């Protein structure tokens, strides 16, 4: 206390400092965060009004600003979870085993675009895209290959898929059942966050309302039958990557989260039955302190909303648990080895921000999917933070920093302004269908691009310290075109050998549930067991619900 008192009271010292600063020659006229928020040259108690109990609390206690667990990384380090997937299920299975063998502690699946859009590998729209940006999974059989030799009762798996997420989760549940694993033992996360798809990432299946209904079906089914599963990973990552600021990422993500809670409650579920299974996913960009403040603000806002606005009583419903990925957009194709350094800073911010799990990008990802060498360096980066820097020994070490607390407050206030604006626009669904959120993100993306081109923001190797063409080249991973042909053959064989009557019957059941109100996830699991393909199930949904039309924003 006495230290801050002396800072506040030394008016003369402050005036002297202000004079000295005013007389100094500065590098820039304006200093801003990466997101363009104004920064003061110095922060003190006057910039960071704080009530310890109300605004910070202790780790594992409301409002969780200091972390969701009492012991944080003293108890258990964050889960090191590298997002992986390319080519065939067999190839990705090998990559999974490679990562597990090198000390990774959880799995994370990247799917190819046809899978993300609900098309089988042999659909005409899939031509040229099979296995390119992730693994191609068109059936339960593919899912079984993907997890061959990996006991689903023992690993935790994350699956990044949204439009057809409930179908993919059904494949996973069925795959577990084929391995003899009770769904109650399955642990993991399905992204299943459709709102940000319409807003930023753009892999959807059906229009908004039926998509939201499927999400509440997942929440309802899992609360009863797959209780350890995180049913939605409410994701700011893609919003940020699409160009938003840190404050927009925070605000739009939490606004989406609140919409899912409203929908769950409206579907008759108790907020404490599904609230603890909601988790989050954020980007960690290069502005070190702004990112740390964003993570802290996210926890505080979510806790307040869940407790005070939605009336959740279970503390687990108040906790904003999140996964973090370092910023793909911060990587440069120029001088790609520098990306290792960028990623390390971003990873450190995520850890100091109290993330539950982390993906570190590989240096070569602006060129293609990562090679084994690149992905190993990315994983080692996390291991170096965990084992060598000693930062994990003290919980929320930056709390009480005038600057970090001021930024945390600022981001919370910015988010609140956005919540009010979204409310005025009729809620997130209306704001998204009208394209308002998309336009906000686009505007920020253009401003950022302009800042780089006008050199008010610098990127080493891109607009400063450039080396021209012919800089260092690195090896990139190539997807064998044979993957697509093999997928076609496997699907043809599957359709031939399955019980056609049973397959048709389960698809009819899906159609009935889609038209009615029975839980769709249960029907998807039955269809998965009957070897119905992703595309077949998805086309039933498209047939019943129609396709989503994106609003014109440009």
């Amino acid at each position: 206390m006495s230290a801050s008192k002396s800072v506040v009271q030394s008016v003369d010292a402050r005036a002297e400092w202000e004079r000295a600063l005013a007389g100094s020659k500065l590098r820039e006229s304006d200093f801003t965060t990466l997101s363009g928020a104004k920064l003061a040259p110095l922060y003190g108690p006057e910039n960071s009004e704080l009530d310890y109990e109300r605004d910070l609390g202790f780790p594992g206690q409301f409002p969780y600003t200091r972390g969701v667990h009492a012991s944080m990384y003293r108890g258990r380090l964050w889960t090191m979870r590298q997002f992986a997937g390319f080519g065939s299920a067999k190839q990705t299975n090998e990559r999974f085993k490679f990562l597990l063998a090198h000390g990774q502690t959880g799995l994370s699946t990247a799917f190819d675009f046809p899978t993300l859009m609900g098309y089988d590998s042999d659909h005409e729209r899939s031509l040229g895209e099979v296995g390119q940006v992730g693994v191609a999974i068109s059936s339960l059989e593919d899912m079984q290959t993907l997890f061959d030799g990996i006991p689903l009762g023992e690993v935790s798996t994350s699956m990044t898929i949204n439009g057809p997420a409930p179908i993919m989760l059904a494949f996973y549940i069925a795959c577990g059942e084929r391995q003899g694993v009770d769904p109650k033992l399955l642990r993991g996360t399905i992204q299943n966050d459709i709102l940000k798809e319409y807003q930023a990432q753009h892999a959807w299946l059906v229009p908004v309302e039926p998509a939201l209904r499927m999400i509440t079906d997942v929440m309802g089914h899992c609360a009863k039958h797959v209780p350890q599963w995180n049913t939605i990973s409410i994701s700011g990552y893609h919003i940020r990557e699409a160009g938003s600021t840190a404050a927009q990422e925070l605000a739009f993500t939490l606004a989406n989260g609140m919409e899912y809670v409203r929908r769950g409650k409206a579907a008759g579920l108790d907020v404490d039955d599904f609230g603890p299974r909601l988790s989050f996913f954020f980007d960690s960009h290069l502005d070190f302190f702004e990112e740390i403040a964003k993570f802290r603000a996210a926890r505080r806002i979510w806790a307040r909303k869940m407790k005070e606005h939605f009336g959740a009583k279970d503390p687990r419903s108040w906790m904003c648990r999140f996964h973090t990925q370092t910023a793909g957009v911060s990587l440069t194709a120029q001088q790609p080895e520098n990306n290792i350094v960028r990623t390390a800073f971003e990873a450190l911010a995520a850890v100091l921000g109290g993330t539950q799990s982390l993906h570190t990008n590989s240096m070569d990802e602006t060129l293609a999917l990562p090679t084994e060498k690149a992905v190993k360096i990315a994983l080692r980066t996390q291991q170096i933070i965990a084992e060598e820097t000693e930062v994990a020994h003290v919980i929320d070490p930056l709390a009480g920093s005038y600057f970090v607390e001021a930024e945390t407050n600022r981001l919370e206030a910015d988010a609140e302004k956005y919540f009010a604006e979204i409310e005025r626009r009729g809620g997130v669904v209306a704001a998204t269908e009208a394209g308002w959120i998309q336009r906000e993100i686009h505007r920020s993306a253009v401003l950022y691009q302009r800042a780089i081109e006008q050199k008010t923001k610098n990127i080493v190797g891109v607009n400063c310290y450039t080396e021209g063409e012919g800089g260092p080249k690195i090896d990139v991973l190539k997807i064998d075109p044979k993957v697509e042909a093999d997928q076609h053959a496997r699907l043809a064989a599957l359709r031939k050998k399955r019980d056609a009557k049973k397959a048709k019957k389960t698809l009819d059941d899906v159609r009935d549930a889609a038209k009615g109100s029975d839980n769709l996830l249960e029907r998807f699991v039955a269809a998965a067991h009957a070897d119905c393909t992703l595309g077949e199930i998805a086309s039933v949904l498209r047939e019943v619900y129609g396709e989503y039309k994106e609003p014109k924003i440009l």
Partner: protein
Amino acid sequence: MSTRKIRVLIAKPGLDGHDRGAKTVASVLRDHGMEVIYTGLHQTPEMIAETAVQEDVDVVGLSILSGAHMSLFPRVRAELEKRGLTDALLVGGGIIPDEDAKKLESEGYAKLFGPGTHTEEIAKYIETTMNARWAKQGASR
């Protein structure tokens, strides 16, 4: 100098949902006084070629970050040719490895722009190329 406005179609072929680059470039080209039509996402080669013909564009710019460029870029070009649009300036951008870019540039794509490209460079390239073309044709309509 011609007073004719350059008409550009910015298109997103395939299932790839990354539209940050496409939309940013579209905005910048518009700021340069070009008439820009943006297709929106998830376009088939047929849809893109159809729009290009209907909108009578001078330039077709494709943006792709899904790795499917070696399949989709040639198909877009083939569909354009099928519809008689053989003189459009074809450009592209996205996550495209150097050797693929070189191959596409030898097969009818005028230029491919990689990650980190200054958007002014894209605008200047289109302006210079189109103006040179029109000057040659004496087509100051």
